[in-house]
């Protein structure tokens, strides 16, 4: 194993600036790691030449003493981000020939801060899924227990698998109902979903506009602080983006949690949650107590309705957001005799099963006669869910929950869509309320698969989220490396 792969993002950032190694050396190590872990299927597209060009430029900047915050650090990009001149498919057949002429705001900010682009990472098709099995180019494998073939989670499964397998130093993801936090938990890494509005959605393929949010997948909490520093920020091209300055998250490290109140929602320890996860949940509570936090039992009574609300709102928005994939201006067209036939064949052929299922559900719940009963009802219950959080955040500073009810399941295990949907039961509520959440690894279950804990904070309290997550990270001392990681 190249020694260079051992450095996490924060460490590599310092080492490069101290000229311990060059960006070209580091980038080459990752390009080799990508080849070594090719069978995981994390990457849809690599751009070696471009990667090395960027690395070379970074080395020059460092030599010139004008290093930027992420100078020379090689990262991967979820295929939901449009990247100029680089094929962007959202893991869908329908975009198999799409080369954006523009760069998403978030990735542009990363390049502007000196990051080196390694390539595009697989995900569930249009980010719809929790196992990465809906990707058009086939599922991604979790590098943990490689011979057991477990799912990396989804939808940012390629991003999580790449970071866990050390074929990317860090990666971008998007989270709509848990798509950063759940795969991070499954792959034993850290995934942060910022507050809705913290990162610009401009240039990110839209799934569910009122929920989608970009965030980092990294090895450590400190790494996610460094990544989010660059990704976040107001963008006047996104009307839902928040015009708020985020404090430097690196300053939030090593702040501790003394005197903070941590709420433990009773609704998050339900039937069906694995014993190992319960055990680590209790352990994590004790760590926080030990670090000087006050533990407060709380209740979020509408938690059980979060999934039904989500599976109305997200498909409804998706059915409309995906209407633009019609074979007229971009994407793969399937010819037909009439315009309508062309639409139906293009979309019927271009979208996979899960995407079609969600478009059907979304179209149904918005259609005349059903709107009030489904869509409007879901929006009302969404308010109740948000109010639950507003209420508890008057009493506590953070909420601690498990990230998922189980550890990573085997690929192909969950055939029935509803069973799959239940996987997001702990991540969806915070998404509906627009709150920031982070999942970080705290240990392994009996079979050797990672367990993730989730912290949820008040809107725009990413600084507090980072400080508190780091406390758990320090106690957990999660130093395991996936058996499928680059050697």
């Amino acid at each position, binding site marked *: 194993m190249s020694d260079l792969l051992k450095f996490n993002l924060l460490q590599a950032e310092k080492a490069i600036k101290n000229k311990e190694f060059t960006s070209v050396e580091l980038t080459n190590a990752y390009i080799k790691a990508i080849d070594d872990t090719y069978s995981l299927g994390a990457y849809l597209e690599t751009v070696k030449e471009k990667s090395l060009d960027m690395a070379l430029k970074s080395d020059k900047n460092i030599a010139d003493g004008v290093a930027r915050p992420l100078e020379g650090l090689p990262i991967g990009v979820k295929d939901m981000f449009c990247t100029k001149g680089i094929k962007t498919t959202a893991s869908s057949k329908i975009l198999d020939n799409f080369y*954006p002429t523009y760069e998403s705001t978030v990735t542009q900010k990363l390049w502007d801060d000196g990051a080196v682009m390694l390539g595009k990472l697989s995900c569930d098709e249009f980010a719809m899924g929790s196992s990465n099995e809906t990707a058009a180019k086939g599922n991604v494998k979790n590098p943990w227990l490689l011979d057991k073939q477990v799912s990396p989670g989804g939808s940012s499964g390629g991003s999580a698998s790449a970071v866990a397998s050390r074929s990317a130093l860090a990666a971008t993801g998007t989270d709509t109902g848990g798509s950063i936090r759940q795969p991070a938990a499954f792959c034993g890494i850290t995934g942060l979903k910022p507050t809705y509005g913290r990162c610009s959605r*401009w240039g990110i*393929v*839209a799934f569910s*506009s009122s929920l989608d949010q970009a965030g980092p997948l990294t090895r450590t909490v400190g790494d996610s602080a460094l990544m989010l520093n660059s990704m976040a920020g107001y963008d006047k091209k996104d*009307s839902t983006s928040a015009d708020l300055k985020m404090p430097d998250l690196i300053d939030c490290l090593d702040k501790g949690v003394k005197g903070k109140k941590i709420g433990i929602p009773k609704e998050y320890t339900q039937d069906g949650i694995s014993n190992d996860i319960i055990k680590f949940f209790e352990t994590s509570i004790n760590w926080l107590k030990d670090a000087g936090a006050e533990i407060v039992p709380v209740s979020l009574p509408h938690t059980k309705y979060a999934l039904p609300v989500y599976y109305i709102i997200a498909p409804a928005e998706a059915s409309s957001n995906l209407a633009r994939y019609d074979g*007229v201006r971009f994407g793969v067209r399937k010819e037909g005799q009439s*315009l309508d036939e062309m639409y139906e064949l293009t979309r019927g052929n271009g979208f996979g099963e899960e995407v079609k299922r969600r478009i059907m559900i979304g179209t149904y719940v918005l259609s005349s006669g059903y709107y009030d009963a489904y869509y409007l009802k879901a929006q009302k219950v969404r308010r109740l869910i948000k109010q639950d959080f507003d209420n508890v955040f008057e009493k506590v500073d953070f909420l601690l929950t498990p990230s998922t009810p189980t550890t990573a399941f085997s690929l192909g295990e969950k055939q029935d869509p509803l069973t799959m949907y239940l996987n997001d039961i702990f991540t969806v509520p915070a998404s509906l309320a627009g709150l920031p959440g982070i999942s970080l690894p705290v240990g392994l279950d009996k079979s050797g698969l990672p367990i993730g804990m989730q912290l949820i904070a008040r809107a725009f309290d990413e600084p507090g989220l980072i400080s508190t997550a780091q406390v758990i990270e320090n106690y957990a001392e999660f130093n395991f490396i996936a058996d499928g990681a680059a050697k």
Partner: protein
Amino acid sequence: MNQVSSNNSKKLKPGQIQGDTGLWEMVIGLEIHAQISSKSKLFSGASATFGAGANTNVSLVDAAMPGMLPVINQYCVEQAVKTGLALNAQINNYSVFDRKNYFYADLPQGYQISQFTKPIVGEGEIIIDLDEGKQTTIGIERLHLEQDAGKSLHDQHPTKTYIDLNRTGVALMEIVSKPDIRSPQEAGLFVKKIRSILRYVGSCDGNMEEGSLRADCNVSVRRAGEEFGTRCEIKNLNSIRFINQAIQSEAERQVEILESGGSINQETRLFDTSTGETRSMRSKEDAHDYRYFPDPDLLPLEFEDSWVKGLKESLPELPDTLRERLVLDYGITPYDAAVLVEEKDYVKFYEKAALGRDGKLTANWMISELFGALKKENLSLLNSPVSPESLGELITLITDGVISGKIAKDIFAEMMISKKKPIEIVKDKGLEQVSDDNEILKLIESVIADNQDKVKQYLSGKDKLFGFFVGQVMKVSQGKANPGIVNKLLKENLK
């Protein structure tokens, strides 16, 4: 269409149709799409200009590329509010943008961003002027902001349709009337009035040929006093003449169906300008479930009362109040005032010409002489060879007695051609009125001498001949003699 006629009975009023089984009346509601006179589009920074090369005024947002997002244009919001104020309508400080979902080749997003349940402007009303000085009030249901669609060209290729997205996303105000309109004539007057208000406000140029103003007409028929019938919507009419024709023929079609025992199918129809009839629109057949929902890429539009108040104060004088003022300030008839306020430019011209002069005479000259002459030359007032100042000077020459009304017409004709000032023409051609008693007396004496037989008849009681003498004197003076003085002196000398 022989059993239905709109003109075989003298008693029929506009909007009535005589069927075999009785009298029918039309119920009409209009949806006017007015393009806002903004530089850029409603949700993107591409130009909203008409007539550019295909797909040039298009941004990636307009083309609905993946990940593109809308950002609203402040000017368009202001214009909608100003227009709402001018329509005496409720301004909603909280409104919501919805997606109207349907598939069409020139609708790149697969939805139109519009406003459905919470429009920016609510109910209002306007007054329209009917014949013989009568007026009627037409209710406004709402005004909302929405995106225009692109353009499909069906005649470029035998088996293909070509798509130009230049218009895609251009800001429209959709102004919806209540079903208060009862005849094609009223519909035309309503559109004219709305167009006039839009031009005063400056929110839309009202140019129907370029498509800045289009109307969808909802037409139904009913027997007098009965409930509303099923309506059909005729799409995208871009002239007042077509609005008239389309409504009339659609209403007649409906009466014919109902009279023969059929029922009306609620549908969208197209007006065929070549046949003058409407036909069912195939492409819209199954598109009736629009699945409206609030656009999650946009937040509700909210503003303060004080902002609305500021916009209200910035509004110009509007046609109705302007008209009252013209009647009061210039003593002209309400009818003449109505003609003058039709366009902002008319009033501007008129007030310049009439300043410090005889308002009534100026209005007469402007409406009958100037407008008549411009129409004959196919010119607009903006390109008039006669300036308001020149017309005013001409009026002054008349009221000062320098020239007669008859001579003035000749001078005016000359002004239309040479653009010269009236006083120059008068001087060049020696057209000043002759008001000198002695000079006129000489003319009278010669006329009397030449017409001794008529003088005898006159003196023996044939009073009517007086006019003949006046005419003769004017004739020999080449029209320059002051008619008042001619009259006076003739009376004294014909004894």
